[in-house]
């Protein structure tokens, strides 16, 4: 009997069953008060049968069965849970009531977690080829788009916050992407040459890495505390600085902060990647008559590419998350909603900022993982 038990499945079942026992939604007479929690059977007329089906799936997941079946079951359950949330919102709020809110509650998040883990576990066990994994990522995005676009979730509190902020949501989304990718671009522009330089001049390694290490340990709030007066002073006193975009608050210090936090991963991975190239390969390259630049461009960088892409992955995911703090100093991005929501104690608004941030980071992480793997594979003709 023990041999037929699936240990990860056991964990997912525990999480999921806890989710079923906790409230699926929170019903609130208006957006600020704490409401009452409703479990799945109470929130929806078809709630009890759905809860039983989900429980059955979770328990069945404790036994061993093929990964493809687990994938299909967990996907169906995920869609079911999300649609149940939308249906509960529509059912609980009278059509003419614009004040009442139905927000996802702890049970919903746990169910989402349980079935997402089950799905990720199933995908990992299937070991799909790279192209298939790209298609899975695309399919997941399309599915999310379809569910959101269908209007099934329009009654949920977060979507109601979205409905009244559609324009600013798109604007802050763009600002968020600009902050994350802009700081990444700057970090690559400065960090790659810096990494190459300290690889060629070992004497520079300790000082450069020490400074970057110290930068990395400064908390973001403290960094802003330093930058706001500093850049404010520069903008006020240096002619042309304000016109060039330098300011104490806003996008500029946010971009600078993200850039500074990105430097260490970029520089240290560049150094690690270049140092990982076998000494005999470099020795041979020089001995055959490649110039220093040719050794770098034709041997070191191509061989270090997987490690360099890993740095891009780290920085991109890190900056998508960190960019939230830009909202604190007027730098824009999804953080704007998070801090507005915190000020108004409106958790739905916080979620409107947090959920897309998490989604962006997840997608960026998965996509970069796939890129790293593609680059680490042998060039064509290498198949035995």
């Amino acid at each position, binding site marked *: 009997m023990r041999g037929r038990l699936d240990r990860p499945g056991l964990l997912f079942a525990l999480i999921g069953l806890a989710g079923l026992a906790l409230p699926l939604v929170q019903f609130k007479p208006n957006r600020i008060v704490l409401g009452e929690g409703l479990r799945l059977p109470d929130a929806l007329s078809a709630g009890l049968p759905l809860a039983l089906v989900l429980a059955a799936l979770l328990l069945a997941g404790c036994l061993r069965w093929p990964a493809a079946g687990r994938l299909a079951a967990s996907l169906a359950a995920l869609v079911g849970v999300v649609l149940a949330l939308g249906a509960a919102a529509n059912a609980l709020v009278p059509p003419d009531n614009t004040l009442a809110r139905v927000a996802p509650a702890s049970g919903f998040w746990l169910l989402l977690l349980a079935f997402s883990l089950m799905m990720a576990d199933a995908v990992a066990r299937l070991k799909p080829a790279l192209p298939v994994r790209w298609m899975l990522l695309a399919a997941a995005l399309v599915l999310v788009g379809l569910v959101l676009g269908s209007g099934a979730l329009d009654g949920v509190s977060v979507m109601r916050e979205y409905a009244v902020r559609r324009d600013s949501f798109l604007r802050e989304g763009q600002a968020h992407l600009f902050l994350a990718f802009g700081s990444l671009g700057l970090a690559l522009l400065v960090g790659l040459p810096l990494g190459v330089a300290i690889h060629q001049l070992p004497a520079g390694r300790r000082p450069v890495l020490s400074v970057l290490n110290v930068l990395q340990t400064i908390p973001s709030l403290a960094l802003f505390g330093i930058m706001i007066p500093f850049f404010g002073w520069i903008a006020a006193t240096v002619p042309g600085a304000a016109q060039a975009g330098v300011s104490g608050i806003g996008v500029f210090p946010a971009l600078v902060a993200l850039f500074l936090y990105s430097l260490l991963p970029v520089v240290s991975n560049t150094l690690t990647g270049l140092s990982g190239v*076998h000494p*005999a*390969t470099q*020795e*041979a*390259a*020089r*001995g*055959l*008559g*490649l*110039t220093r630049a*040719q050794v770098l461009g034709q*041997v070191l960088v*191509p*061989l270090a590419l997987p490690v360099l892409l890993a740095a891009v992955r780290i920085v991109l995911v890190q900056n998508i998350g960190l960019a939230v703090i830009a909202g604190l100093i007027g730098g824009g991005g999804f953080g704007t909603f998070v801090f507005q929501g915190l000020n108004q104690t409106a958790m739905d608004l916080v979620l409107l900022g947090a959920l897309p941030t998490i989604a962006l980071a997840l997608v960026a992480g998965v996509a970069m993982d796939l890129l790293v793997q593609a680059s680490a594979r*042998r*060039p064509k*003709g*290498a198949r*035995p």
Partner: protein
Amino acid sequence: MIEIRNLSKLYDGVAAVQDVSLTVERGQIAALVGTSGSGKTTLLRMINRLVEPTSGQVLIEGKGTRLLPSHLLRRRIGYAIQGHGLFPHRTVGQNIAIVPRLLGWSAEQIRDRVDELLALFQLDPVAFRDRMPHELSGGQQQRVGVARALAARPDLLLMDEPFGALDPVIRAKAQDDLRQIQRQLGTTLILVTHDMEEAVSLGDRIAVMDKGRLVQYAPPAEILTAPATPFVRDLIGSDQRPFHLLSLTPVHAIATEGKAEGAPLRREATLRDALAECLWSGRDVLPLEGGGVVTLAALRAEAAPLARAAE
């Protein structure tokens, strides 16, 4: 002809190579031997200026090596190292093509040269051209490394412990092949090794290095029979001396008239092979392929340098 004149290299005031002068004739093999830290590799790397000499000069065909930028100099000198140093992200063909490509050969010339070299090193061009280095055995990788060094038809080839990573069986074969190809192409070869046996079997002359100084530079027989210093004698090892000496001469050189029983010996086999066969089969006389014999007495005489010198 390679002329090394008073070459020295100091690191922080300490001499890695001190005042070394030697000449390697065109088409000859010079083996640099010594313990680790003796400066043999530094000396080799100063020839293609991977290490810049502190003083002294290197002349190739009478021209100083400092007249060219160092990377252009290196493209004219073959270079092969231990562990081959093949580019892992390039195919075998692309690896061999590196220097011709740097020199701007046409694609057609390069393709022909790659196939020619693969065939020369007994690797089927069709099967090996597009393989990646990691798909080859150690011996094949080593051959591709040497083929790459020879790609642009250099007159001079430098090798640093080229067979160090190979097991003994493949190693002996690789040495035979190298000598054959070197004779065929007429390339001048300077080779670093810590293995006296390799130096004796490959070198036309052996340069023994100790603590950065050249202590003896002479043909193998002279190194074996008249070591210049106790260091040279220790490096050879007294237990190995007669065998090294016997390995220098082929059997047909001391063959005499006569007939003998048993399986005949190849004419190119060395005296060392003949002695081993005598001991193993308990015979005093061995027949040679194509007639003639070699006797145990003659082998003994050859292995005793003092007796031989007295003749």
